[in-house]
């Protein structure tokens, strides 16, 4: 696996697959934080909006003591050749150079869904229905996140509403806007097992700077060259190999992260 090319001052997320119990707290926290409307009655698991989605992966008969694992799948915030950015016909997707966050401008989005076809991680979601909140529930909307309308694509942006808030309070303390700020996305905050760590390698918040270099770190489909900013951790070889599509590895040789 290639060494990371990610600027140390950009954010990374490290998800410990061994710790994840599949409880789904991150999914709920994400939806509430980011003003995702309750699913339409006709929505299925393939038409709903779940910026963070936990999938269960079974080992088959090569369990290695762990028959199944859960992988929380947010947008992988690809750092290189970001597939969704190059395909968007009207520059509605952008990689922020400072934070590394891949940002979907729903207001610019045409809803052509080409980015969804391009995304190898299926981490993008289309608003098939008008977002509707039950009477009174719109009062609970997060003012830092703009709701999206029907017919546009949206996805995880590392809770950039929280980033903006952190940025503002950093400014209050006189911090220049070029320095990275410390904040925690809703999913990381909500995880009861602390399986999701977030920060910049430079500041090494929650140890992310070390974790991305650990031997158990891996990323999804690294051969596509997308350099995701979301890392996974697992001590189990089958999980690492499965995620990297490496079916043939000689025994006894450790795959280096």
């Amino acid at each position, binding site marked *: 696996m290639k060494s990371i090319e990610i600027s140390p001052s950009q954010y990374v997320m490290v998800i410990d697959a061994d710790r994840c119990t599949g409880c789904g707290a991150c999914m709920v926290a994400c939806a509430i934080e980011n003003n995702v409307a309750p699913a*339409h009655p*006709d929505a*299925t698991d*393939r*038409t*709903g909006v779940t910026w963070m989605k936990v*999938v269960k*992966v079974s080992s088959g008969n090569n369990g290695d003591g762990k028959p199944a694992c859960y*992988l929380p799948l947010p947008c992988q915030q690809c750092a290189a*050749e970001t*597939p969704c950015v*190059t*395909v*968007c*016909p*009207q*520059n*509605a997707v952008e990689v922020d150079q400072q934070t590394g966050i891949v940002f979907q401008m729903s207001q*610019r*989005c*045409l*809803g*052509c*869904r*080409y980015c*969804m*076809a*391009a*995304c*190898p*991680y*299926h981490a*993008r*979601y*289309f*608003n*098939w*229905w*008008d977002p509707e909140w039950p009477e009174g529930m719109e009062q609970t909307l997060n003012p830092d996140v703009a709701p999206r*309308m*029907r*017919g*546009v*694509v949206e996805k995880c942006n590392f809770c950039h509403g929280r980033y903006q808030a952190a940025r503002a309070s950093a400014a209050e303390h006189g911090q220049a806007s070029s320095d990275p700020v410390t904040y925690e996305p809703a999913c990381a905050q909500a995880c009861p097992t602390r399986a999701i760590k977030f920060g910049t390698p430079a500041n090494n918040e929650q140890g992310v700077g070390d974790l991305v270099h650990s031997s158990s770190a891996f990323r*999804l*489909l690294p*051969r*596509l*060259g*997308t350099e995701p900013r979301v890392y996974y951790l697992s001590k189990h070889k089958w999980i690492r190999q*499965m*995620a*990297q*599509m*490496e079916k043939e590895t000689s025994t006894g040789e450790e795959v280096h992260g």
Partner: protein
Amino acid sequence: MDSKFITRGLERTSLRNFSVWVLFWVVVLGFGLYGAYLCLAEGLNQTNMDNRFVFGLWIFLDLAIIAFGAGAFFTGLLLYILKRSEFTAVINSAVVIGLICYSGAVAVLAIDVGQPLRAWFTFWHPNAHSMLTEVTFCISCYLVVLAVEYMPILLKNRKLKERPSLLVFQHNLHKVIPVLAAIGVFLSFFHQGSLGGLYGVLKGRPFAFREGFGIWPSTFFLFVLSAAAIGPSFPLLTTSLVSKISRKKLVKPEVLQSLGRISGWLLLAYVLFKSVDTLVWINRTSPSLLFSPYEYYNQESFGTWILFAEIVVFGLVPALMLLTRKIREHRGWLITAGLLACAGIAVNRFVMTIQTLALPTLPFDPFLSYIPSWQEIATFIAVIAYGVLLYSFSFRYLTLFPQERDLNSLTR
């Protein structure tokens, strides 16, 4: 009754028959438009597309009918640029079909996107790196070109040309048609290619991803070549169909055979390049991304038979048929070969869109299936009905086939 509007020397069915025919298609169109209206008013939840199967029937059909519409640019290329004057016999019809295909495709695209009113954003904030930007620009420009090319045909209508201003305009417009044809060829080359590039660039879809030259993946060139290959085949089919329905001889058989022969050579070249491309993809491109190409064909509905069908049954076979003089000179076989060739391109477009999306990329992802909803099918039917209506009116009131008067008697 309307005989004053029909070109002199052409024999057309009675107004009553024509009205019945039109009425039938208007009803079909109405039904289709209702489906399309639902998709616009209620949103794309009316379709069976979803977050994984983001493109469906519509994109497949868009790609296919835009390839079929290539007849307009290719006949224009043969006639105006390569000076093959025998194709005057089919150019008008090819232009009308091109116009129908492109306007139909654009209309469906407008329904397919989530926010059609933002379509102008692509022009205002274009991302020059996106194949889709290129497609959008080229198709809109080419639609304008086709509309301008259609004008002289329309203005030749018996009643319209009575007006001096229209006559003069038509005359002058006709003089610059070669320039339009050249622009059309240029635009077609790029957007037919970019439609192929749409999928070829998707590294995240190893089934569709292809290497290429510079910014263009190999599918770019394959799409151009395949569109050019059926460019002559599709007018051959439509001409035969119209001939059958109207019970008129429309063009001399030699013209159709000539179209078939050109189609055959191009198709042969396409099959050759497609085979080389497939081999490179199986042996190099796909393995380099750690995807075993054989897995793509393990799925229930998409076996290797589809690859065989695409390249051999609907590629090599019609190519060889069209290149065989004896087969070409037999009307029925000629049409069969044209039909096979067009089906082959449709299969190719199907594979590039539907199969690409059905196959999983993530290792733990399942294979997906998708069946279009009635609203999607209705929208497609609306395009067909629109095409039939526009063509019927053009055929009745305009001169689509100049040779028709020489080939038919005027006895009822």
